[in-house]
């Protein structure tokens, strides 16, 4: 099966752009002052790949032009291949703008060629590429069909097989427009006129001679970079581009049957240090939408010092992800996972320190007899209030009526924070019972019996 990207040169540069910002602006990528690829808005104005830049500007005066970036294209093609690895382990690159997949062994798993194609198309749209898909008995046939957008090899225009310009001109002169017409020419005459190479290519497409292909091996660690077409100053408008990268990460992880314990998104600025956002998970995760939700909370409170020009997403250590078994009833296991997700979301927005549990701690000093984390605790001797004030509030001599006490607490001389206090239960206002103490500095309100 072949995935061919007719607008790859453009999409490699523009896929980080959120749809609302100038969706119908015409854009084009140029090389040597001629148009290499253009978007739908530019095509509607009459701009075609191959037309001269001056002609394109005459047709669409608002045309925005980007120079071709071959490195970005190569990176994007590898990203597509790594993403597609979740469908088959036999992925081959066909630079500049196609990827070939050997899917014979995966058809049953994904429910047939039609369903697999639908999944590929929607998945590729998610990471920002518009693909033309075609299936064929051989790699070359599939590639030609995808390029030429034709149902059968016979009906394929000869330009789709990319012969040399002289051969193409000669074929057109003798009236050969489709591959079917080319195949009907006598073989003995074709080789001297158009070169042996053309015949060999044809034989490879028809499966008469085998074709050796190098398979793509995805990298061990995930790291992807995405250029933003225009610098972005608001942190939350980065989200759209980040979603593309997270979906790419999801595909990479699906291929490895793994999850990650966290990821780091770097916003790269011109000149200054990158802004790095690290998101950690309580358990290994693969789900892009969940990562995006956490990222949204973090980006919402982030103020950028300077506009971001590119994004880089790096995944942490891979961890095997246990497949979830669907259960008939909503069980405790699923609930525990929901709870973890909720905690992650709360901590992402409020900060780790503000969301915590409670535990006892063996210390007689009241303000130390609790902990935010797990710890073994000792029981208190006397009654203890449900609210503890941090820090204790100073009280005047006449602000309270003593009801019960005292309970002397004298501890902490060993670590320099010694406490020598007499605690009383007192009535501070009508009906309010409080826990107050007298120390060397006077009377203090330390708790409320709520």
């Amino acid at each position, binding site marked *: 099966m072949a995935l061919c990207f007719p607008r790859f040169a453009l999409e490699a540069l523009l896929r980080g752009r959120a749809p609302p910002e100038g969706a119908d602006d015409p854009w084009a990528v140029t090389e040597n002052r001629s148009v290499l690829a253009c978007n739908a808005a530019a095509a509607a104005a009459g701009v075609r790949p191959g037309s001269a830049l001056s002609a394109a500007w005459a047709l669409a005066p608002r045309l925005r032009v980007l120079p071709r970036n071959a490195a970005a294209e190569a990176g994007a093609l590898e990203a597509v291949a790594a993403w597609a690895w979740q469908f088959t382990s036999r992925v081959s690159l066909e630079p500049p703008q196609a990827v070939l997949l050997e899917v014979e062994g995966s058809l049953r798993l994904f429910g047939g060629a039609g369903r697999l194609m639908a999944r590929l198309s929607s998945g590729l749209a998610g990471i920002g590429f518009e693909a033309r898909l075609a299936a064929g008995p051989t790699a070359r046939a599939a590639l030609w069909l995808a390029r030429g957008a034709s149902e059968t090899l016979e009906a394929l225009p000869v330009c789709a097989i990319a012969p040399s310009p002289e051969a193409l001109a000669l074929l057109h002169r003798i009236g050969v427009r489709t591959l079917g017409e080319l195949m009907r020419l006598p073989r003995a005459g074709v080789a001297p006129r158009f070169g042996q190479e053309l015949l060999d290519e044809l034989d490879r497409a028809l499966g008469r001679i085998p074709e050796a292909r190098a398979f793509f091996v995805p990298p061990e660690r995930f790291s992807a970079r995405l250029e933003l077409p225009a610098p972005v100053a608001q942190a939350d408008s980065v989200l759209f581009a980040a979603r593309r990268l997270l979906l790419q990460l999801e595909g990479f992880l699906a291929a490895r049957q793994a999850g990650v314990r966290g990821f780091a998104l770097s916003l790269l600025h011109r000149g200054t240090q990158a802004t790095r956002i690290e998101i950690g998970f309580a358990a290994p995760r693969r789900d892009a939408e969940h990562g995006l939700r956490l990222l949204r909370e973090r980006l919402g409170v982030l103020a950028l010092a300077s506009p971001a020009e590119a994004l880089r997403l790096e995944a942490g250590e891979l961890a095997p992800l246990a497949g979830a078994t669907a259960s008939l009833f909503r069980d405790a296991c699923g*609930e525990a996972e*929901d*709870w973890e*997700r*909720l*905690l992650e*979301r*709360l901590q992402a927005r*409020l900060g780790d320190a*503000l*969301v*915590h*549990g*409670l*535990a*006892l*701690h063996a210390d007689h000093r*009241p303000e130390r*007899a*609790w902990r*935010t984390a*797990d710890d073994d*605790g000792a*029981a*208190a001797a*006397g*009654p*203890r*209030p*449900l*609210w*503890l*004030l*941090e820090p204790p509030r100073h009280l005047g*001599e006449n602000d309270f009526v*003593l*009801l*019960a*006490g*005292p309970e*002397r607490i004298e501890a902490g001389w060993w670590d320099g924070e010694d406490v*020598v*206090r*007499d605690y009383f*239960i007192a009535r*501070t*206002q*009508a*009906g*309010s*019972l*409080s*826990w107050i103490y*007298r*120390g*060397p500095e006077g009377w203090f309100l330390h*708790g*409320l*019996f*709520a």
Partner: protein
Amino acid sequence: MTASSTALDAVLLHHPVWRGGALALAAPQGIPTGFGLLDRELPGGGWPAGALTEFLCADEGIGELQLVLPALAALSRAGNRVAWLAPPHLPYAPALAAAGVRLEFLTVIRAPGRRDALWAAEQVLRTGTCRALLAWLPRANYTELRRLAVAAEAGRAFTALFRPLQAAGESSPAPLRLGLEPDGERLAVRILKRRGALLAAPLRIPIQRPVHAVGGALLSAFRTRSPAARPCPA
């Protein structure tokens, strides 16, 4: 018994006639409060799950938490999670442990701002993994409360909102509103709003007060010497 009253009984028995004195019996099963007096008066026989309950307190430290503590202890002992959202002070672990609450099921969420608190409350309610949420939202307005009420209906959590008694005059989407005032050693609970008939007299709930535990004896012995005259420790 006369024939006419028998006929009336039959009508009342077999027709959907709602009598003013009766509580809404169809209310879903509540979470037992631990106070029999209160359970009898609350629709559903306990704290409502999946709905807001407002606790409007006259002051801090009048024993307002004692009212929910038995339910929290029971829920946590059964392995249910309880979230404390934006508490005004630190929930004191030794006192909670002494009341039988299992601390490992408690989570304290401190929100820096009012909007953060509302957001977190909605998240907790929508996820539905907590059986109880205690939230301190003193300045929430009707629209915000309405939003929380919708979120609460999506879950099955006992949602307790603690607000000042002054808020009793404002309208609220909470189906159960209680006004709490001190009443000697007890807590006077006025049911300001519930599904069913109004209750005029406040309930006097015998809550756990620290003075019972210590007893006045210690202090009376202590009072013979004036607290001010007593030499300061150290």
